[in-house]
């Protein structure tokens, strides 16, 4: 309705068909739409073209070292949580050219890379992933050096988040103060409500960009009853989290236990496979590779994802500072829950539980932290 005053905390109600229309509007606006999609028996963030591509009725089950999905007849669009990839893959790609260089008679020229980036609309971003993005912003945008590729994608991205009304056993966002409800940082935030026979979404506006998009849908403001229904679902979801972490004084407690025998015990299980760093929405280590073509006339420098679990991560003149698996696991955990706090004013963990699910030997950070800080 043109007369409805839209402000940044307006909540609207949208039907299923409104939601389907929303996606079509985004397509018309030339967004590349990234949303949860089933692929290879997992739900990952991938490109979609319509609401039908979403994992409708799919539910996930996660435990340490275990992940599977199953079909249900719920008809819900978002009845699952997070899968093996995160927004990180889009903002901080696995490989990226930093510069190209060309030999010339005076030596060489360095060519700045002009990134061709896509305008992304992310739909279905969970609170933990939203917080994960904000955490990565601190690394790539807030330091003395700002990553231009990251900034470009970030500035153009539209984020439509989803408040979680379900959870997996591996989730612990409440402990990390990053969920299940999305607080800030979204353009639009959805809460899906399916109380047969009704199926609708509460859409909260979070920014001017969000306002612009939603105004094209001509939605009604949500009623008190509709808003409460959504809030109740979220409130209920806050109960019964199986996993938690005590974050009070965690930074100091973990570091104090630098010599704990628990690290040695973990090292007997950890494969240093780096799965946890790959699925983690906040891990940011990268390495560089310099290559030339066969003639040696053109060179490029590429940045690639790296992990502190690799033995060469800490290589320096002829040796590795952290050669043992124990020291590498310890570095990862201490960085995430201790050093990060001093570096970026926040924990490097958003409680998404991916590292627990995707660890092939099922190492559970919430368990290990309890043991170490006992």
């Amino acid at each position, binding site marked *: 309705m043109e007369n409805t005053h839209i402000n940044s905390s307006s909540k609207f109600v949208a039907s299923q068909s409104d939601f389907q229309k929303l996606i079509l509007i985004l397509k018309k606006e030339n967004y590349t739409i990234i949303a949860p999609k089933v692929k290879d028996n997992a739900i990952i963030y991938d490109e979609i073209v319509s609401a039908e591509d979403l994992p409708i009725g799919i539910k996930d089950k996660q435990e340490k070292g275990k992940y599977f999905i199953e079909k249900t007849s719920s008809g819900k669009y978002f009845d699952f949580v997070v899968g093996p990839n995160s927004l990180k893959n889009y903002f901080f790609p696995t490989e990226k050219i930093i510069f190209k260089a060309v030999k010339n008679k005076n*030596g060489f020229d360095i060519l700045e890379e002009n990134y061709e980036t896509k305008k992304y609309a992310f739909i279905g971003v969970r609170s933990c992933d939203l917080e994960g993005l904000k955490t990565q912003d601190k690394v790539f945008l807030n330091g003395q050096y700002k990553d231009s590729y990251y900034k470009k994608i970030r500035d153009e991205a539209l984020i439509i988040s989803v408040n979680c009304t379900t959870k997996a056993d591996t989730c612990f966002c409440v402990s990390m103060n990053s969920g299940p409800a999305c607080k800030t940082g979204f353009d639009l935030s959805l809460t899906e409500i399916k109380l047969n026979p009704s199926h609708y979404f509460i859409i909260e506006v979070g920014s001017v960009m969000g306002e612009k998009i939603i105004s094209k849908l001509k939605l009604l403001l949500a009623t008190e009853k509709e808003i409460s229904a959504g809030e109740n679902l979220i409130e209920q979801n806050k109960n019964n989290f199986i996993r938690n972490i005590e974050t009070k004084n965690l930074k100091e407690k973990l570091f104090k236990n630098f010599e704990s025998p628990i690290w040695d015990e973990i090292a007997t299980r950890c494969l240093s496979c780096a799965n946890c760093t790959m699925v983690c929405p906040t891990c940011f280590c990268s390495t560089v590779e310099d290559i030339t073509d066969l003639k040696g006339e053109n060179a490029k420098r590429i940045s690639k994802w790296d992990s502190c679990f690799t033995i060469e991560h800490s290589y320096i*003149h002829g040796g590795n500072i952290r050669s043992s698996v124990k020291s590498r696991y310890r570095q990862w955990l201490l960085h995430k829950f201790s050093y990060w706090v001093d570096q970026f004013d926040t924990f490097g963990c958003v409680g998404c539980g991916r590292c627990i699910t995707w660890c092939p030997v099922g190492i559970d950070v919430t368990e290990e932290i309890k043991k170490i800080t006992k």
Partner: protein
Amino acid sequence: METNNFDKILPKPFIVKKFKKETHDTFTIDLISKSSKFDFKPGQFNMLYLFGIGEVPVSISGNAQNAKTFIHTIRSVGTVTKKISKIKSGSVIGVRGPFGSHWPIEEAKGKNILIIAGGIGLAPLRPVIYNILDQRKSFNKVALLYGARSMNDILYYKELETWRAKLDFDLHVTVDRGDKNWRGEVGVVTTLIKKISMDWNNTIAFICGPEIMMRFVLEELLDLGMKENEIYISMERNMKCAVGICGHCQIGKEFVCKDGPVFKFSRMKDYFLKREL
């Protein structure tokens, strides 16, 4: 790209103006650029890029006053440095920087300065020595203790002789292995500390060398009564980006590339004795 990123991420081509062999595995190159203006502070480093091969962080070892060239003393230890060791004058090397923190000479005004260098550690300290000598009257006693492996591994021999001749500069050099031609002291650099008489309550120390050497030197200095916030050390770690986003150079919460490489020891003390940190 924002202009502030240009210097930090894209190497600028510099020409090797001079190449000098210092010892059997160490050499010094002078790099000049027609188009770039630069200045640096003692203690900072550049990332030197060899076309298509890779980059290596190297401290700047020249005089920071009116610097017209970037001077780097490099030890040939890995792929990139071995390649640089074969470079000829006139070749082009990419440079990005300068990066990192500097030796805080301003903290030492009116105080004594003790500089302890081990091996190639003298290279990142040379700019601050120049700086100190340029403003000698601002400081009380100044001493340099330098330990090298053997006589053939001593860097900047001629300069050391010039410094030794100064009346207001206390210089002691020792080697780990003596030989026929060496008439000076033989023994590890920690043994030189007790030969200096300084008021340890009014002294700032700048130390650079292998971590194990710094560990023992620190023990001596702290035993003598120096405080953790009066001692500065230069640390080294694996570096890729030099701007604090690749995660490689971290020591605990500190990024060596931007919080260091020069650190007040109080910032490092919780980490220094922890193995495999």
